[in-house]
């Protein structure tokens, strides 16, 4: 039912290839620069991952997109409109789940879902009941008695029961159990199949890997990485674990090969995706018996960008020894940074 009602609105938006386009967005709170020249483009019909650690500016960006916060600088276009000026008209076409779902304690979950559905004007009662069942949510409980996960379910059901062409979800699953996480992923795939757009802010990397076509990684209010997952993999290293007939030699001299560990006929190393071909050619001359390769995960992408933060934390945990002790992680940060520039 919702599929049919969603189609006309989606079709009307076909004119815009991009659902969200942000360039050079700046937002300051007093002296704090929460967003510092953020760029992001979300294409219509895609599920777009929005990654970053706590406090990196994800929620601030979303609040700017909702017209709740006024941008200090930058160009923002949402569904072809200005999120500040055209807030009401744009809000008819989007549904939002806040990261911190705060509900009126005296109202029941069912009442709150209906309130949002009716305020938006596109409540589909059949779809609502179906979602309540799938998420196993009791709508008669007063909101004060809901756990964090159940409050998030209220927000999710309210958003997913709508036929909005854009869903903005701010860390929507941080309180859900793995079963509900699966239900959520199924729902998002259905939304995508209907040609609707999803902006999914998250720090659950497995979820983003499973759902998203493209991702933006932000840090300190700035976009540090952007593209499809395969594009990003291109910029990262593959881990290789290989057993050969004869002990491998000369691996360290190859460009793009890092962290080589040798034990007789076993070699383990990381290799830049660009240099994978050369490394494998080199290995064949030693007679490959088994080879396992680990594709780069978002986890690694993430760690690479926040690696220096982690190194700093580790340093502090070690009792404040100078950073040069934390060699590898520290050395990798700048090296990866320059490689990033070369690759792009």
């Amino acid at each position, binding site marked *: 039912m919702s599929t049919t009602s969603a189609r006309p609105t989606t079709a009307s938006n076909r004119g815009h290839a991009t659902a969200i386009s942000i360039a050079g967005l700046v937002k300051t709170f007093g002296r704090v620069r929460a967003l510092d020249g953020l760029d992001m483009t979300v294409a219509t019909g895609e599920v777009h991952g929005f990654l970053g650690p706590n406090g990196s500016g994800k929620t601030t960006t979303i609040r700017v997109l909702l017209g709740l916060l006024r941008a200090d600088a930058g160009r923002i276009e949402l569904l072809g409109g200005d999120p500040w000026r055209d807030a009401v008209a744009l809000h*008819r076409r989007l549904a939002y789940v806040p990261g911190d779902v705060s*509900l009126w304690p005296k109202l029941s979950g069912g009442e709150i879902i209906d309130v949002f559905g009716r305020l938006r004007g596109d409540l589909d009662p059949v779809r609502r009941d179906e979602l309540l069942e799938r998420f196993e949510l009791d709508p008669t409980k007063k909101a004060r008695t809901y756990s964090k996960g159940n409050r998030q379910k209220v927000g999710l059901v309210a958003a997913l029961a709508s036929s909005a062409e854009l869903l903005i979800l701010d860390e929507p699953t941080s309180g859900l159990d793995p079963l509900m996480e699966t239900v959520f992923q199924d729902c998002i795939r259905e939304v995508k199949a209907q040609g609707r757009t999803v902006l999914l802010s998250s720090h659950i990397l497995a979820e983003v890997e499973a759902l998203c076509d493209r991702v933006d990684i932000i840090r300190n209010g700035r976009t540090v990485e952007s593209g499809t997952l395969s594009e990003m993999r291109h910029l990262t290293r593959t881990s290789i674990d290989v057993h050969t007939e004869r002990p491998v030699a000369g691996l360290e001299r190859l460009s793009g090969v890092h962290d080589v560990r040798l034990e007789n006929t076993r070699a383990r190393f990381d290799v830049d995706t660009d240099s994978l071909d050369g490394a494998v050619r080199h290995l064949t001359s030693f007679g490959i018996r088994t080879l396992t390769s680990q594709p780069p995960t978002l986890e690694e992408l993430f760690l690479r960008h926040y690696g220096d933060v982690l190194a700093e934390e580790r340093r502090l945990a070690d009792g404040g020894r100078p950073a040069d002790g934390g060699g590898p992680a520290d050395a990798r940060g700048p090296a990866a940074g320059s490689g990033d520039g070369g690759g792009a």
Partner: protein
Amino acid sequence: MIELTGTGTLTRFILRRDRLRILVWIGSIFLLEYMSAASTKGIYHTQADLDKAAAAVHGNAAAIALNGPDQALDTMGGQIVFQIGTFGLVLVALMAIFMIGRETRLEEETGRAEFIRAMAVGRHASAAAALIVVSGMSAAVGALETLSLLSLDVPAEGSVLFGVSSFVLGLVFAGVALVAAQLTENTRVALGGAGAVVGAAYVLRAAGDIGDGNLTWLSPIGWAQKTRPFAGDRWWPLIISAVAAAALIAAGAVLSTRRDVDAGFVRPRPGRRVAAPSLGRPLGLAVRLQRAALIWWSIAMFLTGAAYGWIANDVEDFVGDNEAMQEVMNRLGGASLVDSYLSMVMFMVALVAAGFAVQSTLRLRGEESALHAEPVLATPVSRGRWIVSHLTIALAGSVIVLAAGGLGCGLVYGITIGDLGQVPRMIGVALAYAPALWLLAGIAMLLFGAVPRGAAIAWGAFAACFVIGLLGEIFEFPGWVLDASPFQHIPQLPGASLTIVPLAVLTAASAALAGAGLLAFHRRDAGY
């Protein structure tokens, strides 16, 4: 003892976290009592004045019901206790229940208690810390009362006894609140239940004081009054209060071990599966969110009006030929003494009702800082429509709350004199104050729009109106200070004659303030 581990730390934590709240409670009770006591001393200069005042109250059921028992009213000490005693005891009781509710049940409801209880903290530590703080607050109020009385040159024993009675009453109601906090998981329901006990205690002692005094013994407020400060000075009734306080606290402690953290004994009712049709619009939602507050304010104002209306017909006896009192009444303007009294009553009702106007308007800020506004504003509801929905409740609700006060006063006064024409008359008098309430709502709206973090300053405006209204005339504030309060510009019906201009000006000013607030809100960041 292990169940009390951490009590000291939690006590210091409450003192640190709520230091301002604690000082405001103690300070305002002290100031109100002291001002009232000092003005009592100022009104009655000679023994003859006191004798007349005592004679006026003797056998006057209404005055006794409102103010307290007829005990040594021909002495300055007795007269002061008559003026401030019951009133002060009710305030101490309210202080105790609000503080206990806040430090125990509210902490559980918000989930903070769970966090604390997961640490090396004993099962009873939170409640014990709250009791220590409330005991300290009650003791501070009692000590300030004693010092105030001593400074007014009344006998020392009665002064000390009065202060100690207040202190022990605080303990009793701390116990009542502690038990109430165990029964339900909703803080407001717990506070409502404990508040109902305060109300029942007040009414029981009123009934007892009018009659043979036996019913008074069923009331904790009555036990405090049975100590008869300045009228025989009996200490032994304090034993009853102390035993009751100990029993209630013990009961609260036992009950708290028989339930889960966060749970109450009364299971919450399930809510509706589907929302009522009215909830689909911002105004319907605002009505639903503010409905309970509006109903309770209306009931409270109705009862206040009714209580004052009850004694309206006796006001001539009450004031008697006390020239000072007559002067105060006459200054309020009006032909007959009853009309002057009624206009004073409605002035008071309107001042109190202004609390609703401020509270209701500031609900906008409450919704915003609780993150409830954010998802609403993310729907196609414009900022203006959201504001107007809550502002409508504040403005229309002000009218309803005022009308309830007028209705209570007119109905009860009308019944006592057999003239129900008083009902529309008193409602009309009350409604004349609507523009003053709207002005306070307008101030709150402007603050919300322009300085959201300082929106609570609106309560300061409310308090200023209160101080100007109650004390401005007595202490002869300069004219510009008096003029600052919108309430001073409302014609004091039914004594004075109705003039439209000030009402129209106040209404226009309210609209301008609210409009400016709306514009400011449109320009600022929202939702946090």
